[in-house]
């Protein structure tokens, strides 16, 4: 063990370097939808009422045709009226999202944990991961459909391909945050490499992992809907193309509303998980 040791070094700044990019910082969670007081809730609702009411009024006042922009009231009506017809498609999209995301996230996490243990391998793999992150996986969907048909398979693969690299690149940043003093602490008690991983590296990486999971889930949703729009007869994306081709704009916007709710729910879910398990950093 002689010779190869690093010079004992203590960063004077507090542990970790998660302060660089706001996108990858958990404080993005902290400044999120934290509901503070009844007064603020009332103000948010009042703004919503004014905006929605204003749009409704303006659309009716200027006789804007339904196929250009339906008034909020007709969207709300369509949402309730058509919901039993839309609900199964919501289910299909969720199946694609959850299974694709789970597969992608697990592969991404394992790869991140393994690759960060081998700096040389990491340097070799990094550009390819960047390629996966930056390539819109939607571009592969037509190819996947040719190979796997119009079922779940191409969509789940596309979601996994979109979510996995996002999870991996963020988790790798987390695993790379080595605090030599904390690892030395564990080693001073005779910790094994595995113990150091589970008791030091993993908890230290957790905030970044959560950010990666959140971004991955949202990219997964985008990709699932996009893939459904490309081909196949089911899913919320398919509903969007169907309703717009039939110029059923209230129904179309009802689906958009469901999609934005889904996105917000993903955000809130990870916000709450982050608050419970990673609040020590924020």
């Amino acid at each position, binding site marked *: *063990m*002689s*010779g*190869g*040791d*690093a*010079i*004992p*070094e*203590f960063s*004077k700044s507090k*542990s970790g370097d998660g302060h660089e990019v706001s996108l990858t910082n958990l404080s993005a969670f902290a400044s999120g939808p934290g509901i503070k007081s009844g007064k603020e809730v009332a103000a948010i609702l009042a703004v919503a009422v004014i905006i929605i009411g204003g749009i409704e009024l303006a659309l009716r006042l200027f006789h804007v045709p339904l196929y250009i922009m339906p008034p909020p009231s007709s969207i709300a009506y369509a949402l309730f009226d058509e919901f039993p017809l839309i609900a199964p498609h919501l289910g299909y999209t969720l199946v694609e999202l959850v299974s694709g995301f789970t597969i992608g996230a697990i592969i991404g996490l394992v790869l991140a944990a393994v690759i960060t243990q081998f700096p040389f391998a990491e340097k070799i793999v990094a550009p390819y991961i960047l390629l996966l992150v930056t390539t819109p996986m939607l571009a592969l969907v037509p190819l996947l459909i040719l190979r796997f048909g119009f079922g779940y398979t191409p969509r789940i693969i596309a979601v996994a391909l979109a979510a996995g690299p996002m999870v991996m690149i963020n988790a790798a940043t987390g695993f790379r945050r080595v605090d030599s*003093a*904390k690892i*030395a*602490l*564990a*080693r*001073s*008690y*005779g*910790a094994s490499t595995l*113990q150091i991983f589970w*008791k*030091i590296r993993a*908890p*230290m990486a*957790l905030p970044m992992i959560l950010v990666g999971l959140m971004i991955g889930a949202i990219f997964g949703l985008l990709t699932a809907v996009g893939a459904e729009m490309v081909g196949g007869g089911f899913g919320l994306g398919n509903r969007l193309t169907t309703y717009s081709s039939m110029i059923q704009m209230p129904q179309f916007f009802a689906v958009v509303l469901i999609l934005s709710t889904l996105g917000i729910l993903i955000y809130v879910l990870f916000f709450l998980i982050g608050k419970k398990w*990673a609040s*020590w*950093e924020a």
Partner: protein
Amino acid sequence: MNTGDARNPKLGVQAATKIYHTASGDLLALDRCSLDVSANEIVSIVGPSGCGKTTLLWSMSGLHGLTSGEIRLDGIKITGPHPDIGIVFQEANLLPWRNLDANIRFPFEIKGEKPDRAWIAHLLNRVGLDGFGGKFPRELSGGMQQRAAIVRALALKPSVLLMDEPFGALDSFTREEMNRLVEEIWLDTKTTIVFITHSIEEAIFLSDRVVVLSARPGRVAKEYRVPFARPRSLEIMATKEVFDLTNRIKMDIVGERTRPKALERPSAEIVRIRP
């Protein structure tokens, strides 16, 4: 004071030499550094910045290997982290995602042992952290964090406690308080303590012996015995003996600093690496 048997020290450092292989070349951090610490003794190590104090301590802890030379605990060569050696790190080094109780449990989890609850409760009481077990490190002041770190280090009942500039980040009042706490704990447990510090006053107040390391490469330049009886009061710090001793040690260190430039240069480099 028990000065132990000089031929059978509790902790014996024999010609410890450590070379770091860095990108900018080899770095001789310790050069044939020899030092004995007797059982129940408190020894402070002071020296100019970057003289290898921390390297020496990390080698004593078994966290670092030596390039040559050896360190023996109770006559047995140290080859890795040893259960009989506790370490208190610079800046408490608590795990921020664990509350105090869980932080203190951490060593037991690693070792797969059951924590000695009565002993931990006694230690927590001793350092005045009763009722803070559920708090997270960020909710505590620097002094309280360092108290918790001391409890964590002592929880396994080590016979040697290595302290690496533990109070460097604290303000001077908290520091004095912590020094008295260390002395109290020592009176309680008689644990052998090796204490690294930048503060000569701290070293004198705490130690039976102050060891001055030379500028890099670190080597034992001088040793001073501190003869005052324990428990020591803060008043002794105002006596002429302490004043003279402080000045002599200061001159040793400053004298080191004003050595020729050629010897000074590598020292400046390590300052950059470890500010």
